[in-house]
């Protein structure tokens, strides 16, 4: 079966509740059977922006790392990957990093708005909740 393109702008991602990880969601029925499902929520773009490693320096390493080959000006992705220590200010830092990644999507007209919260769930464990509205103003699923 050929990929049915009219269903959305980008691939649909499904969260595996056992591992917490996202993966492609495949159609099991209909004309799109066997192909990735498509949707318009922009979850792929949000996750890509949050998880792509913006060039930065992890504390204590003494050298910069990360960066996306096609992002020569280092404007894409987030610095969430550099968080390696749990300090008093880490939740707010985590929030700032996530907001930076989401703001990139706003500026490129991929989403309309966003909301980020971050908190410490236990010593050494942090959680960030990211919600956003697509360009139509529709509330998308938070990640």
């Amino acid at each position: 079966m050929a990929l049915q393109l009219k269903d959305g702008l980008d691939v649909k991602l499904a969260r595996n509740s056992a591992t917490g990880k996202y993966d492609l969601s495949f159609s099991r029925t209909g004309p799109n059977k066997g192909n990735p499902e498509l949707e318009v929520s922009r979850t792929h773009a949000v996750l890509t922006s949050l998880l792509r490693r913006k060039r930065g320096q992890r504390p204590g390493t003494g050298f910069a790392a990360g960066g996306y080959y096609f992002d020569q000006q280092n404007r894409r992705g987030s610095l969430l990957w550099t968080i390696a220590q749990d300090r008093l200010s880490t939740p707010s830092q985590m929030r700032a990093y996530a907001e930076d990644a989401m703001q990139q999507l706003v500026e490129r007209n991929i989403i309309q708005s966003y909301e980020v919260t971050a908190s410490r769930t236990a010593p050494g464990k942090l959680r960030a909740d990211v919600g956003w509205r697509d360009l139509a103003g529709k509330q998308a699923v938070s990640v």
Partner: protein
Amino acid sequence: MAVTVYTEDQLFDRAIGYFRVSFPTQDLGEDSFFGLLARAFARFFVLAQEEIYQADCDSLPAYQIDADGNPRSRCSTEALDAWAFVFGLPSGSPGIFGRRRATVSSGGLAIPGVSAAAVLLPANTQAADPTGQIIVKTVSATTLNGPPNLIPVQFVSVTTGVAANLPIGTVLSWQSPPAGLNATCTLTSALTGAKETETNAELVLRILQRIQTPPRGGTAADYRFWTETAVDSNGATLAVARAYVYPLRSGLGTVDVVPLYGGSGTGRIPPAAEITKLQTAVDLLRPVSVKLNMLAAATPKLIQIRVRATPSDAKNGTYGFDWDDGGTFVTITAHTANTLTVAAVPAALSAAFAAGAKPRLQIPLVGGGGSELPFVVTVSSIVGTVITLEQNFPATVFDGLTYFWAGGGVVLAVAQRILDYVNGLGPSRISGTADKGDAWEDQVLLERLVDIVMEAKDTDGTKMVSAMPGYGSTAAQIRIGGAAFAITAYRPLDTLVGAPELAVIRSGGIEVIR
């Protein structure tokens, strides 16, 4: 170029174009799945294309001329080594084909001091130079006499590469001296002949020469090849950098060959003992009906070269002269190891020194036995008519004859290029018997000198010279033997009696003036 190479942008545009046609309604931005896929494809093809391009480059032992005028191999190092092996290029090690490896120096002599009689100095006893980096060893076991010992000991280097060429006067420290041997000794004869590993550019040219002039039964190219790859009776390379062939120069059935080493000046000419070894080596290979004459190039007239240059004002005047000598040299009337006396110190030099500019002098130590390059040295003090230098004179100074000009950043850079040019010339072709298929240059041409000076560039490509004052007249002059500087080229002669002449610059024979 045999394959078309697309730029990274072209490949990216094509990949995105393909995805745009295939997925017309999908987002192809850099955060979308399809956009990322397109970029990944583009990157994959860039990397794959790199491999294809390298395979194309390695498919022939070819070279390209870079912007700086130097040939560069298009092949990778590994491919060149394989080509050298396939075509059976001698490496200099008996029985091994391939790239010439770095070689050891030889010919070193020293007369070690002893504090006891009949000290046996075993073969392979090692000593180090003052840096401790260069290791040399004795060639054979020698029983020293004395004290004082008068028996010389022969050295070769253990270390390979040009750093192992140690000059006369180098102090060697024994690493495990036998009892009765002094801790150090001094070289009375230089260690010479060591070379670096053959570069890719050198190897590709050697491969091409081998392919374009394949071995036959004794063509001129064969004699050149045999001489350049000759080994002595022990299988050690005779290290000829370039051999020049003159078929029939000495009559029917003769072939004359003039071998030259790398290096500089008369040091390029093999000594008589080495010429004999070369004759013996090539005699074993030549057709039996040929009379081979292995000749050491003649140098009856040494030359001096004087060029005028206006340094460019790039890099805050780095290349400029430190003071204005007004186009007139100043003769040294007396000297010590690091001072010189003149009749009157030039006012411009005094002013530059007083201003704290650390002015430099350019002293051509003509005939002083040192380098062909001028001695460029900083003035450390001026008292009356006595000028003190920051370094000692490296060669002989002749009071009343040796003179100096203004020094500056451009001097040594240009002088070195001129020296490289002359050291790249071959022996005279004036007899008309030189190999027609091997067109080497033999004359020191004024137009070449002008070109070299004007094209002098720093390592970053910055041009160092903006003009040559007196172009057409005194911009470039040559002094041949004892004659005066003149605006004429130098063409070495070949009277067919003895060997062809070779252009060689006298020590201290290059001057770069304003």
